[in-house]
């Protein structure tokens, strides 16, 4: 390859970065940084809102096909304009607020939820040099902002002045806090390995190759285990099936947002999906090499395309899992978080340490895999043994 080809590839890769610079370069110096930040925010809001629209229709069609149905197929070609119809519907619906509700908090809850979900995107590098702010505590910021979602959920449950929404909010909070612990602990292994909290430097560290193979953290025993644990915790954190008990659409209708209608209800959906994208994007950043190509000979494809390809892949896996697994019970959910996820993430921290201090080679691989797999099997066996399967007798219902 000639130098000019490299330059052309680099130009395509950096097209958004350079065009942003060109747009703001004509402005006076004191407005340049703020206007470039505003441009990035507009881009993030538009792109991820569009991704939300695409995901809803993909999810409905995918779930339909898994259940041998068509899914939406009326609006536009193959039903792909369904989100537009849904948006118009939710905008034209009456916005009901309970008379005894705390009006202000009831209004603020969906706004805060969406805002918190969007704030998390500030530190996610969606491409090479494409990050809104390169915080040196980026991962910490991400989880701090992510916990704002819990506040919004409880605001929604509390302000509705409805016992069902309050109970739903309590369940949601219990679940989110329980799974936040393994979520953070699972990501600590990457911070240990990278020695940095900055998302940009974590991705840079993974964007190099040995031969054709990339240095993604998922291709290590602790990285793979960490990725699996992180994704399970992320599923629970974003209230997705099989951990969707706070919403529980088939039995408790909507949980904490039962008193919301019209566009506020749509905002809750938007917030939930944005949270799912954000945690998936964080998983990509931490374990799957962020915007880096999976093979060294594929680096000519622009970095942002790789990022979104990985994101869409994770979303499709989320949809696949939603179409497959039934919902857990509350006690199963909690015991899984505290009795399986937490010990495994702690063990994973230890394994990451072992990996770091052992000399490179096959022995290190075998030791680390054995250290992870054997306790996982033993732990799940021992948890299973405590449970007795028997015919339940109900005192009053027979």
């Amino acid at each position, binding site marked *: 390859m000639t130098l000019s080809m490299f330059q052309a590839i680099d130009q395509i890769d950096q097209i958004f970065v350079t065009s942003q610079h060109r747009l703001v370069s004509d402005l006076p110096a004191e407005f340049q940084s703020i206007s470039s930040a505003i441009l990035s925010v507009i881009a993030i809001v538009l792109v991820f809102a569009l991704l939300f629209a695409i995901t809803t229709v993909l999810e409905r069609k*995918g779930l339909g*096909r*898994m*259940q*041998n*149905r*068509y899914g939406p197929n009326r609006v536009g070609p193959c039903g792909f304009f369904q989100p537009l119809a849904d948006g118009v519907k939710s905008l034209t619906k009456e916005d009901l607020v309970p008379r005894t509700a705390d009006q202000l908090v009831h209004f603020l809850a969906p706004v805060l939820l969406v805002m918190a979900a969007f704030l998390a995107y500030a530190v996610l590098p969606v491409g090479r040099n494409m990050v809104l702010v390169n915080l040196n505590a980026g991962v910490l910021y991400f989880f701090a902002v992510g916990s704002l979602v819990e506040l919004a959920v409880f605001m929604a449950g509390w302000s509705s002045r409805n016992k069902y929404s309050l109970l739903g909010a309590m369940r949601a909070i219990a679940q989110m806090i329980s799974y936040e612990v393994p979520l953070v602990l699972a990501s600590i292994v990457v911070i240990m390995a990278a020695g940095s909290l900055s998302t940009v430097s974590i991705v840079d560290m993974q964007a190099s190759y040995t031969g054709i193979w990339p240095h993604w953290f998922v291709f290590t025993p602790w990285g793979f285990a960490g990725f699996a644990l992180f994704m399970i915790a992320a599923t629970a954190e974003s209230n997705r099936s099989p951990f969707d008990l706070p919403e529980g659409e088939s039995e408790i209708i909507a949980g904490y947002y039962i008193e919301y209608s019209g566009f506020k209800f749509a905002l809750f959906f938007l917030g939930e999906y944005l949270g799912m994208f954000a945690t998936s994007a964080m998983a990509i950043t931490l374990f799957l090499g962020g915007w880096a190509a999976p093979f060294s000979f594929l680096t000519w494809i622009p970095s942002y395309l790789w990022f979104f390809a990985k994101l869409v892949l994770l979303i499709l896996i989320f949809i*696949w*899992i939603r*179409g*497959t*697994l039934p919902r857990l019970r509350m006690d199963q959910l909690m015991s899984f978080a505290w009795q399986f996820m937490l010990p495994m993430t702690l063990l994973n921290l230890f394994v990451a340490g072992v990996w770091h201090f052992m000399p490179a080679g096959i022995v290190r691989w075998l030791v680390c895999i054995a250290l992870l797999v054997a306790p*996982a*099997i033993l732990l*799940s066996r021992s948890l299973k043994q405590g449970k007795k399967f028997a015919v339940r007798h109900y005192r009053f219902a027979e």
Partner: protein
Amino acid sequence: MFGEGILKGLAETARNFFGSYVSKDRLTTVQFPEQRLPQIEAARNFPFLVYDGEDWQQGMRCVSCFICEKECPPKCIFIEKSTDKKPDAVGKPQFYPKVFNIDVSVCMSCQICVEVCPFDAIKMDVAFEHSTNNRFAGLLWDKKELAKPNEYYRQIHPIEAAAVDAALAEERAKVAAKAKAAADAKAAAIAAAAASTSVEVATEK
């Protein structure tokens, strides 16, 4: 094994997902407004009035006996009787309904009117797309809207209609035989009277 069930489930849903694009047999959904399944014989929705022949007013079987109006649980039928008479389905002169209204917003499709009608005049329809943009007028059906030919009844409920047709034909034959017998008897009486008068004339001579 550890996680085996989850993998099996994932394989099953993946098979369904790809299978639904390959085999059309998997997708059993009927795309309703364009595709329709044939109506089943026992389907029923709202009642209609059956008439024989071409003219819906002359052929109407209803004799305004008020039984259906009295039996209707939600009281959705309103009948006004005529002052004159017209021949009914079997040929006897009977009253007919001057007004016959059914408020379908009240009707609960219970079929009791059909069960109690001794004249097979009211039957259940299967048409179900009756949305209107008027809350009141569009849902109060009068005699003209309710009247439907016997051919339509045969089409939607073939087995039931055949039994009704057979019973009516038998009834018609009976009535016709009776009328013929009455006519014969009358003719015989006239003939006998004529004979007796001639005998009387003869004896007087």
